[in-house]
């Protein structure tokens, strides 16, 4: 049982995140993967930027701290912690192209929604985005895809525009 608790707590990368995600599709690997290195480098660059921006904005003095003081302190803390986070040994999920493809399809559907919003308005753009997400990310049949994509925006229109009186026009912005 103790082992059971140990395993479960070890799996809790965050105590507030759902754990139901299926075991990592391609298993786990030790060593820092490319995504981790990319994130850490981006964070380090952002920290350097915060320091420069903070100094440029003006840090003021201790008796009268200025706008840049907070950014400077944040930049220094992040930069100080980055090497400690880098050297910690952890296991990461192995990259699985097919599975990541489903995540990419969801993002693509969201981008399609944003791109077509001005042209078609919230609900039609939403329906288009849902087609991509339901078909290629959730991998549902065409029948289910069309049902979800058509019914969801219609119900949301009734809830938000009709019941909550939110100014979400059925028509595109240019009309």
């Amino acid at each position: 049982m103790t082992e059971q608790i140990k395993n479960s707590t070890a799996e809790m990368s965050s105590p507030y995140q759902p754990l139901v995600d299926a075991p990592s599709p391609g298993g786990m690997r030790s060593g820092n993967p490319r995504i981790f290195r990319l994130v850490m480098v981006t964070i380090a660059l952002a920290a350097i930027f915060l320091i420069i921006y903070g100094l440029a904005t003006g840090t003021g003095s201790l008796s009268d701290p200025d706008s840049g003081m907070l950014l400077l302190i944040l930049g220094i803390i992040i930069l100080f912690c980055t090497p400690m986070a880098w050297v910690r040994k952890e296991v990461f999920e192995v990259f699985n192209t097919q599975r990541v493809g489903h995540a990419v399809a969801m993002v693509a559907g969201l981008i399609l929604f944003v791109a077509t919003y001005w042209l078609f308005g919230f609900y039609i753009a939403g329906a288009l985005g849902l087609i991509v997400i339901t078909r290629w990310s959730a991998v549902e049949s065409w029948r289910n895809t069309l049902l979800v994509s058509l019914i969801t925006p219609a119900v949301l229109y009734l809830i938000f525009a009709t019941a909550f009186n939110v100014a979400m026009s059925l028509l595109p912005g240019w009309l």
Partner: protein
Amino acid sequence: MDAITNLFSGFEVAFSPYNLLFVTLGVLIGTVIGLIPGLGPVTAIALLLPITYELDATTAIMMLAGIYYGSMYGGRIPAILLGLPGDASAVVTTFDGYPLAKQGKASQALSLTAIGSFIGSTVAILTLTFLAPTMAKIAGNINSADMFILASLGLLMIVFLGSGSKAKAMIIGCVGIAIAAIGIDPIDGNARLTFGSLDLLSGINIVAVAVGLFGIGELIYNAEHGFYKGTKDLNIKTKMPSKADWLLARFAILRGSIVGTLIGIIPGGGGPVASIVSYGVEKKFSKNPEKFGKGAIDGLAANETADNSSSNSSFIPLLTLGVPPNPVLALIFGALLLHNITPGPTLINEHPELFWGVIASMYIGNIVLLALNLPLVGVFVQMLRIRGSIMAPIILLVALCGVFSVRNSLFDVITAIGFGVVGYILRKAKFDLGPFILGFILGPILEVEFRRTMLVSDGDFGIFLDRPVFLGLVMVILIAVVATSVNRLRKRQAQLRQRANNPDHTMYI
């Protein structure tokens, strides 16, 4: 006696048909979202945060509180029936809940945990009722320096009590503060990190950040890992626990209530910690510890009770000190800010209808939950038939609609999507997102109170040393830091001892 009089005035607020409707809706939606494998209380609150923008502050917080403890109730259903924990706190529920279900005792396990959750929650709400006003009274004369210390404590405890890398938690907390700094400086009115954008001038909207990180990001992550596939042939009929089960579980429920209530108050505590600790405590007290992990009814009762009582008691630091002890409460803090209400020591005097109304609504919500979870458990179970691949696209568009509705702004929708992608990438890089949202919420408070204190004291840090709150809290922080270090040292020593005893292992010192 004041507390009881005020509580009755709170019931007057909570019993209005409008508030009753939203409390009931909150617990119902919370239960349904909680039982969907893959969606926990943070996601539930994040996704529904925009909808509460349309409501008045008291009703909004009553509903969000209902969603929170409703999702805690809901999370136990798939954990017991399918061995699928909806969130981290339900992991321990699977240890004994799922074996009990396999032994044909699913209905009894569900009923017992519903009753245990109700008792645990009631103990926590009673504590909240009688402790909160006293705490608020003590906290009534705190100043900027104290507020800065309290906010720092809230953030540091989350960092140090988190399960992952402390350095990563510190980094992500600072990133959250930096994102919150975008917009107009609250003290001198200068634009910061806006790069000339008018949209950024008003800052990044909390709703967009919350929905993005915890809603959209979670769904993208689930898309990669495969959605819940749905389960057929789940027919559960309500069956009350037997007398023997009840006798076995009654003291476990009592202990779970106390442990959960205490852990819920501590920043960084919350459901997952409460359920693990109470499970461990119960195993020590149990006459049959060997049954734990194989269907021990007392183990199940203890952890489920503690889980729910902690969700209710976590409102104590939020409502009295203005310190959200976990990310869910940070989002509720954000909801209050959206309504121009700052939680803290002044809340009880400035908004008594909200303070007491929310507490009263918790009593009502828990009774509604018990009523829903005992006779209607079979109906909720049917929700587990629905595939995640059908739910996810629907939830996604609801989330986008909600974000858009707050300010009718496509910029907010784009921000939410952006944070969704960032949240997904950060999870892939094994970053805990809890400190981010706490940093985002507490960042502006930290900055404003620090700068005010420095202005008042003319840059003298000695002002912090004059405050008894500071000395008390420094002690707490030191104990937390020392305890973490000692724990790590002991683990390391145990590992070394184990290696030393292993003849096949060569040690180089």
